[in-house]
């Protein structure tokens, strides 16, 4: 039930990007899509134990003994991927905001329907 909900968040972002006329709203839609893919990745890696104490973050303290750490720990690989993809999302959004500021300076408005200089 959880993965489809996360995918619904993705489609909300896609809908926002495709239909909204305001430039900042499009950037917001892109951020929502980035967030939903990150959440989807971390959801993939979760290992459900019987109770809360049965699941552990993939960090070894001096106290944990190794063999049951292997049984209880969550999958570290999606977390590494998400760490990279969060910063990629930040980079793309920073560039998009830079372009929006420059567009506002050139066109005087955030509304994409008024920016029809391009023909064809």
């Amino acid at each position: 039930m959880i993965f489809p909900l996360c995918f619904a968040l993705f489609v909300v972002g896609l809908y926002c990007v495709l239909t909204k006329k305001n430039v900042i709203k499009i950037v917001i839609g892109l951020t929502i899509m980035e967030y939903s893919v990150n959440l989807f990745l971390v959801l993939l890696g979760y290992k459900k134990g019987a109770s809360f104490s049965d699941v552990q973050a993939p960090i070894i303290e001096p106290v944990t003994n190794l063999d049951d750490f292997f049984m209880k720990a969550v999958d570290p690989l999606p977390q590494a991927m998400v760490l990279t993809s969060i910063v990629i999302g930040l980079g793309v959004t920073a560039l998009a905001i830079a372009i929006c500021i420059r567009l506002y300076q050139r066109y005087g408005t955030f509304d994409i329907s008024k920016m029809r200089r391009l023909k064809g």
Partner: protein
Amino acid sequence: MIELLPLFIAIPLGGAFLITLTAWKLKRLADILGVCASLPLLVLALLCIGNRGVYHIGAFLAPLGINLVLDGFSIILLVIVNVISFMAILYSISYMEQYTAKYKYYALFLLMVGGMNGVVLTGDMFNLFVFLEIASIASYALVAFGCEHEELEASFKYLVLGSIGSTFILLGVAVLYGLTGYLNMASIAQAVASMEKTWLFSFASVLFLVGFGIKAALVPFHPWLPDAHPSAPAPISAMLSGVLIKALGVYAITRVVFNVLGATSLFGIIIMVLGVLSMTIGVFLAVGQWDFKRLLAYHSISQMGYVVLGLGLGMFIIANKGPTLVAGMAIFGGLFHLANHAVFKSLLFLCSGSVEYQTGTRQLKELGGLQEKMPVTRVSCTIASLSIAGIPPLNGFWSKLIIVIATVQAAFLYPSMLILTAITILVSFVTLISFLKVLRYVFLGELPSLFKNIKDSSLFMCASLVMLSLLCISMGLLLIPGLRSVVFDPAVEVLKQGLDYGKQILTGL
């Protein structure tokens, strides 16, 4: 040779970091660093033709760490990327004088080249996404380098569509990881071979097709290309349509579909339909254009349709266990056209850049009679236009001929293929018409008054134009010895192997 593979990524990234660190004080240092970063890349790419190997980064074997894979197919892309980027850097030494902050341009250019080398070499799905993101972000910024009205709007549209594509690709990688537990392409290929195809698997392949389709500007996702390419500076639009949509789009689709997801006949049909659609719609949109660069941009969509048609045909035949000779012919035609298109399309964009640099305008109606004033540009533009239209001695003709022969041979098995041959010939005829129009309006006719005093473009621009046109001619007459046997046949072998590419990688090539 295999130990030098990481240099393909270390040199451009190191060059870009150094340029931003040191080159803002003295202007010439940026040019020097730019050229001396891309020259060794060219030499390295030519050196590694003909051999293959796997390089495990960080000394971790295949499924644990990331490995760089050098096989026939990635060699072709490596050579194309580095040849065209060296020519574009040479061209932009004098072309970019009209922009400020030139060192930022060089840093972004080298990062784009590093990103493309990373995409072509990597053997790991998530790494493919990361380097694809580097090349795309660098090209978003480069399209908007001039900060004019059209450039900013085109770059915003390109950024929005590009990051929708990237998010689809990341979701596809996530779903594949959910299914197989691996990120390494070779291990995924093996896991997919033994796994029954559930709905989730086809969902992942749809995600990949949409994501890479947006990057390759195939027809349903092409709106960003006709806006982004004309408004970018000339060397950047040469790189964009010459190399970027190939390395990020077509290479990624073929690598993922052939070697990771397994080629099924449904894939072949979908890709062939996309190719045919791109061919026809691209060329008919191009006929009505009067802006030189926008016309070239629409033509790249239609020429990409050729490449995708060839590869889709090969995939369809392999999936249906058809005669492998015909499949090999179709794939060879597609790859050869990919290489040819990279050369003559970037040459055309560089010619349009030098025309715009001298006259200041891109509208075909306002140009005319430039033949005496700009001899070098005229000669190279005629060579490139004739070869894109497919005139016999030049390279465009041979690759289109091979694709047509492949469709005819395939028509013996599946009679519906004859429509493909008819469409291919019709589209190449319409391309010929529109390029004769370009030659007529730009170079023949009377010289408008205000272009009296223009002279031909400077040394560096002419040097790269001449080199690219020589390459165009030599590839056409197959003068380069062993072009087919050394370069293209291993690539065709790699693609024909399909899924057992994974076994080869894991057992050490």
